[in-house]
């Protein structure tokens, strides 16, 4: 009995010591205050924080020392699906995904804590961009348009709700966004003619709080289908406005079946996050016939525009235009192409491109720039406040678009073929839309890495050949690279733990953590970590 007591006190003592050493005393999870001002040892949302700038204040890694960057650890998912998710970091634990899979991994060492496997399902497995977190709960979208809530401690499931009917053709791939007491998520699926929406769920119960329908513009003669809402939006807490992008209308390539602008497809919309009510909308591609979603991150920036302080929203849109809007009211400040664009007749009074009907897909083909995947796509851009540069992973490209009556008016309803494209990281001066520098990362082919900038002036991204890159933000010159065996497939993130800054990138099924070598008495643990994680994480 006495022995038992001694053991008990020993264990208790050890526990207290361990807790005292931890940077945040207890696992606290995520709360509303933290989301408004995420600490340096966290990355609690898809974009790291609400503005979507993906600009970290961390400065340990600099343009001068980044040449010494090396592998801290690597984590093998042993999946063929590539990592498209940006890991969340909360209380020293990383959470990231591929379709049907969530991993919780120690952010210091890269070792597995738990692995959740979603049940077999028939949903579209095109990708998964990660999870959301609130308190100690993880929110993950199944391919079959379900949302599950998992216990962040052990990956056990709390609930599983249906967000849309996958048997009709809906699927989900996105990392939801937590705003206040709302878990907000959209839907995907443009292989079928389906109405689309953004929904908000109760973080505790999963009960539906509100739904905003894409097809809600006043005066529509008949319902508009399409307008997928498949990427997380951004949020301005002062204005209490949620910004979300919508995708293309359906049928996709055949526009004759759906005359008019097809509001609010291919739009950037501002919603009240508490009610889901629309406050304003800006249509990036009125009457789209080329699959150019406007779901790319609506990046929120406060700064000078034409000599006036402005609250702005910037988007490098898939259709090839860079937009700057006043995010208080949706009024356009700037619309400039940032790659080849040959499908518009100019801009209307609102600064929206006017589609050229002669460039609608046709039976004998139309040469279209950009190709259907756009001048950019879902990989995150980054805004660097110091230089005023909006950095985007660009894909200047040309393609052929076809549509004929026998293609019908359902789903894709046509055919398109990419002809040529290259990949470049482009740095756009947000005040003029001019490209200040362009760094080619793929000769005659596309790349796909997202972008992270840091306050020290380093840009992290990747090329089409499998190199992770660190560029000088001011001029785009390469400062460091490392071959990772496959092109970077996600958008990088960074964090500071125990005084060490880590940068995370995913290539294929492997998550890499990069850091400067440890100095003064501590040991390098990279080699050991890699081999330890070479095993199957189950």
């Amino acid at each position, binding site marked *: 009995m006495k022995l038992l007591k001694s053991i008990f006190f020993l264990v208790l003592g050890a526990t207290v010591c361990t807790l005292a050493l931890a940077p945040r005393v207890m696992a606290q999870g995520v709360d509303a205050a933290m989301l408004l001002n995420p600490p340096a040892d966290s990355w609690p949302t898809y974009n790291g924080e609400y503005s979507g700038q993906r600009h970290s204040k961390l400065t340990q890694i600099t343009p001068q020392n980044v040449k010494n960057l090396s592998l801290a650890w690597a984590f093998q998912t042993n999946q063929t699906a590539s990592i498209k998710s940006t890991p969340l970091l909360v209380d020293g634990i990383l959470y990231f995904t591929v379709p049907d899979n969530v991993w919780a991994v120690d952010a210091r060492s890269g070792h597995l804590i738990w692995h959740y496997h979603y049940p077999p399902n028939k949903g579209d497995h*095109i990708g998964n961009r990660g999870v959301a977190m609130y308190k100690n709960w993880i929110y993950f979208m199944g391919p079959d348009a379900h949302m599950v809530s998992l216990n962040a401690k052990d990956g056990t499931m709390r609930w599983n709700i249906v967000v849309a009917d996958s048997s009709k053709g809906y699927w989900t791939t996105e990392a939801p966004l937590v705003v206040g007491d709302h878990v907000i998520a959209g839907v995907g699926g443009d292989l079928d003619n389906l109405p689309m929406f953004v929904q908000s769920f109760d973080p505790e119960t999963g009960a539906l709080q509100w739904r905003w329908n894409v097809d809600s513009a006043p005066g529509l003669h008949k319902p508009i289908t399409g307008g997928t809402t498949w990427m997380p939006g951004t949020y301005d807490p002062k204005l209490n406005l949620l910004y979300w992008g919508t995708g293309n209308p359906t049928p996709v390539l055949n526009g004759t079946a759906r005359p008019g602008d097809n509001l609010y497809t291919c739009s950037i919309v501002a919603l009240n996050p508490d009610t889901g009510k629309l406050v304003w909308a800006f249509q990036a591609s009125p009457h789209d016939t080329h699959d150019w979603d406007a779901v790319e991150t609506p990046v929120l920036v406060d700064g000078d525009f034409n000599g006036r302080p402005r609250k702005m929203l910037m988007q490098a849109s898939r259709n090839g235009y860079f937009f700057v809007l006043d995010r208080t009211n949706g009024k356009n400040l700037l619309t400039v192409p940032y790659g080849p664009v040959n499908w518009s007749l100019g801009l209307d009074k609102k600064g929206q491109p006017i589609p050229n009907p*002669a460039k609608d897909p046709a*039976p004998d083909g139309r040469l279209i720039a950009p190709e*259907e995947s756009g001048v950019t796509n879902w990989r995150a851009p980054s805004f660097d406040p110091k230089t005023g540069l909006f950095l985007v992973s660009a894909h200047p490209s040309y393609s052929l678009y076809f549509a004929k009556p026998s293609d019908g008016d359902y789903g*894709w309803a046509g*055919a398109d*073929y990419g002809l*040529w494209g290259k990949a470049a990281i482009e740095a756009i001066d947000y005040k003029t839309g001019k490209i200040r520098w362009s760094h080619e990362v793929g000769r005659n082919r596309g790349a796909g890495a997202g972008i992270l900038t840091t306050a020290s002036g380093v840009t992290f991204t990747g090329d089409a050949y499998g*190199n992770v890159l660190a560029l000088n933000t001011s001029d785009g010159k390469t400062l460091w690279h490392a071959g990772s065996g496959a092109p970077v497939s996600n958008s990088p993130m960074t964090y500071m733990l125990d005084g060490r800054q880590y940068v995370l990138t995913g290539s294929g099924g492997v998550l890499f953590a990069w850091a400067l070598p440890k100095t003064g008495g501590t040991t390098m643990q990279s080699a050991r970590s890699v081999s330890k994680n070479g095993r199957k994480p189950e």
Partner: protein
Amino acid sequence: MKKLRTVLFLAAIGMITLYSARWMPLNAASPASPAKVQASAAGAPGSSSDQAVAGGALFQANCAFCHGRDAQGGETGPDLTQSKLVAQDIAGSNIDIVVRNGRPEKGMPSFKFSDQELASLVAFVHAEKAKAESNNGRRRGVAVSDLQTGNVEAGKQYFNGAGQCSKCHSPTGDLAGIASRYQGLQLEERMLYPRDAKSKVTVTLPSGKKIVGMLAYLDGFTVGMVDASGTYRSWTLPNVKYSVDSPVDAHVKQFPKYTDADIHNLMAYIQTLR
């Protein structure tokens, strides 16, 4: 001029080599075993439709995003029902290889399916192909007949004039018989941008020695070539200087200059080069 010709000739050889290299291993697949032949019948009417149904579910979850629900093409992915590779597939002889290995150069990932799953996918694709073909006359996708709206004479003028095609190409030289080798969409795509064209690279070593070969790899850090003896060689940058001679870039420069009518006329003319 002579140099340019040589480069073009080399490029053409390179193209043919690459083309054969890509298809040969698939076509050279050993004759199907009896078991495999049986599986191939899955796509035929009246046979194991359960297998095609099971394959359909897998297809919707993993392939439909790019290739469309009915395998007739969609976002990024080609129409499989009109694919040469599928047409020449015997019980998965071609499809298995592509699904298992992916086509990273074209953006297609690899997939880990069991043999049974793969067989069901193959059955589904063949069933969709049969379905699409039974719909003849009203089928989706780009038919050769769709691409006949141009004017031969105007296309010839464009070839020799504004298009500047004749600077590098000759209807009796490199393009002789091109329309017999390729038809329809495939011909038009090649006409606009032959994506497997090779580039020449000249590497200058620190000693001043120059080495010439076909460009095999180039990123910001390494240049690789296949030299005259067929050997792959590479150098770390910037330890060497290099220059790339890439005649195919003229096709990229032409993109912003075309009207759609130019393309249709040029296609009409190129189709006469049989």
